[in-house]
């Protein structure tokens, strides 16, 4: 496969996932702010955490004088000047899909293209105005349709594995950010950790990962920070848990190289395998002792290392060093 095609498929997987996760983050925050009627409507307090989580604060300040709910939603959803906004992510996904149009199935292209056309339509704006929550659900639906279509219509070969790798990498990153959002949200004064509002916030985090129902099947009692964090970071088979996603990206890498899971054949596999092992053997108490925010931050950094290693292994095409080859022959 052309290195450029591999790269485009990887980014296609990432951008679609990014659009989905931004929608999830905004959806959950909208619900949270609705649930918590503080009476004072401090929009800055309610919406600043979104910008902190997405690390977009600086760019936002350039374009908006103050933090408001509308401003943040607009910025993360429709702002073309924000390269991480939903609309930008979808436009980039589509651009990548266009460059590999002959590689992906027509059905996959039609899913992305109709998401793009819809986001740029009046209908999308109208739905957003009428019910932003429904709007974000719609984006998530499109993303699910894309992944379903991909699984059902694209050969599960090299290209599919690059897509999976991109998807799982981005999802791991996003889930860690959603969880981290809870770290940035301040409890209203007078509220205690473990109190009602705290529990509501943890439930919102679960819901934004579509994890509430799955979580409830395991934990019927009180919603506690440790049990939620444990579920989202360490569950072995829930498809949006960090451990599951990392194991997914390890599998994609090994499917690409053909190397068995017990060994590694390149740097990306080594780094990803190590992260996967850490997640297999760490406990939630260890994580809380390190500090959850620090732990998640570290994961995000390790993901960057894995993605640049993958890029080096497959996409950064280097000309074989001819001079070195001639010298070897002389010896």
């Amino acid at each position, binding site marked *: *496969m*052309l*290195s*450029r095609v*591999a790269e485009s498929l990887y980014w296609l997987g990432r951008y679609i996932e990014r659009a989905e996760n931004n929608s999830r983050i905004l959806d959950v925050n909208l619900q949270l702010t609705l649930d918590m009627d503080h009476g004072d409507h401090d929009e800055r307090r309610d919406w600043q955490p979104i910008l902190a989580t997405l690390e977009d604060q600086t760019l936002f300040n350039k374009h908006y004088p103050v933090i408001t709910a509308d401003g943040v939603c607009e910025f993360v959803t429709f702002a073309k000047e924000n390269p991480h906004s939903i609309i930008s992510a979808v436009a980039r996904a589509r*651009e990548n899909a*266009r*460059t590999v*149009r*002959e590689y992906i199935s*027509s059905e996959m*292209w*039609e899913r992305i*293209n*109709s998401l793009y*056309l819809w986001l740029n339509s009046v209908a999308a704006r109208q739905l957003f105005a009428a019910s932003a929550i429904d709007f974000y659900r719609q984006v998530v639906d499109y993303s699910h349709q894309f992944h379903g279509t991909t699984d059902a219509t694209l050969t599960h070969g*090299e290209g599919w594995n690059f897509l999976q790798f991109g998807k799982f990498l981005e999802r791991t990153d996003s889930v860690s950010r959603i969880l981290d959002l809870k770290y940035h949200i301040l409890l209203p004064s007078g509220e205690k950790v473990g109190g009602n509002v705290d529990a509501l916030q943890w439930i919102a985090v679960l819901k934004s990962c579509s994890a509430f129902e799955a979580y409830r099947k395991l934990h019927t009692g009180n919603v506690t920070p440790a049990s939620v964090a444990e579920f989202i970071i360490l569950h072995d088979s829930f498809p949006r848990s960090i451990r599951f996603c990392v194991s997914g990206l390890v599998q994609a890498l090994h499917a*690409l190289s053909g190397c068995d899971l017990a060994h590694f054949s390149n740097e990306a596999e080594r780094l990803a395998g190590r992260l996967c092992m850490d997640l297999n053997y760490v406990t939630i108490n260890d994580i809380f002792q390190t500090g959850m925010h620090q732990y998640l931050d570290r994961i995000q950094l390790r993901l960057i290392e894995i993605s640049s290693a993958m890029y080096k292994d*497959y*996409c950064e*095409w280097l*000309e074989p060093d001819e001079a070195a080859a001639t010298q070897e022959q002389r010896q």
Partner: protein
Amino acid sequence: MGAFFSDYKTDGFYDEMFSAPGVPRPHYVKLMERFQAMGPEDFERKRSLAASTFLNQGITFTVYSDNQGTERIFPFDLIPRIIPRHEWEHVERGLIQRITALNLFLHDIYHDQRIIKEKVIPEEVVRTAAHFRPEFMGFNVPKDIYVHICGSDLIRDNDGNYLVLEDNGRCPSGVSYLLENRQVMKRVFPQLFGRYRVRPVESYSHELVNLLRYVAPGGNSDPTVVLLTPGIYNSAYFEHSFLARSMGVEIVVGQDLMVKDDFVYMKTTRGLKRVDVIYRRIDDDFLDPLVFRKDSMLGVPGLVNAYRKGNVNLANAIGTGVADDKVTYYFVPKMIKFYLGEEPILPNVPTYLSMFEEDRKYMLDHIHELVIKSANESGGYGMLIGPHATKEDHEKFRKAILENPRNYVGQPVVNLSRAPAYCDGAIEGRHIDLRPYILYGEKITIVPGGLTRVALKKGSLVVNSSQGGGSKETWVLDDED
């Protein structure tokens, strides 16, 4: 809108569908019955179904009217153009004759230049052609084929005669619209389609890839073929991707290829892979920054040298542009006689060359009734339609002709034939042309019909998509009606 075609006017033009107002030609009778049995809502539904299909599949082209480059769908008219079998057989014979002569001409001018020595074509015409590549004199292309893929534009005059308007021997585009139009038409009008015996077009991609494999250098029996595109921002990118996909070959941009020891390779996740044949959709000028335009970011450094060494083949060959120069066009009927000893089956439109003194005088005196074209522009640019132009424009072109007589040709305005098209709620006659696609490989194959382009603006004679043109399905019948 009343019943379909009830007040349709032919306005004295040759009409594809009607021999006289209200009298359809025999091969259009079934179509007319089908449309008349259809209500306006039904028609509207089919129209929007077709339009949304094109948009959803991303079958678009890019218009560079602003810096952004906006994507548009190529307007599609639902009423097909029907060509009866005997007409098509005539056209087909004419096109085969023409591409044969054009290839013999290219081989000749890059070798012995017999046609110049025997004074059939003035030496100056070839030497000064913008796309003549003297550096390829004496170079042998595999199987002696220069123009592998040709799109010659045909029009019909007031008596319904097919004439050749121009040849496109570099990178003719549009074939994907023809193929997609057929898919859409089958979806939208399944019954009507079933009532005619329409010759299929679907084998085009298959024929194309066979041709590309056939011209691989050194008779390689399992060559690697790629399609080289300028990239996703090119207006024809959809087509490039469509063709690569339907041929099952890689689509590459310049940066995917590299030349090492005069062989061409593509960069893959598993290392370098040798490339044997490149179907390039990039003009000569951009192919190789080491040889042609230095500022080209689209090409591959070293590609031309690999080509010269015979390690890779290009379709079409380098330097074919000299054959579709509008001045060379004037000489094609003479070429046919010279190389084949035959009379041209498809005549040219009468043409004046301003490089000839007598013709120039005629062109300057009659500029208000002629179409003036510059030799190397396309897409409806660089052209004057005398009767529709202002006095200032006449003057501008007079001056241009006098400054550079080599660069202009003049032709009488041919009233292109018309066919009914749906425009702003009514069905009216609009001018059309036809671009067939000719493949020259082991044998010459022509996809039945071609792309019918229609000038949707009332009265307009310009069918190009950049100038408000659209397309129609073209049906070649396997029987007479």
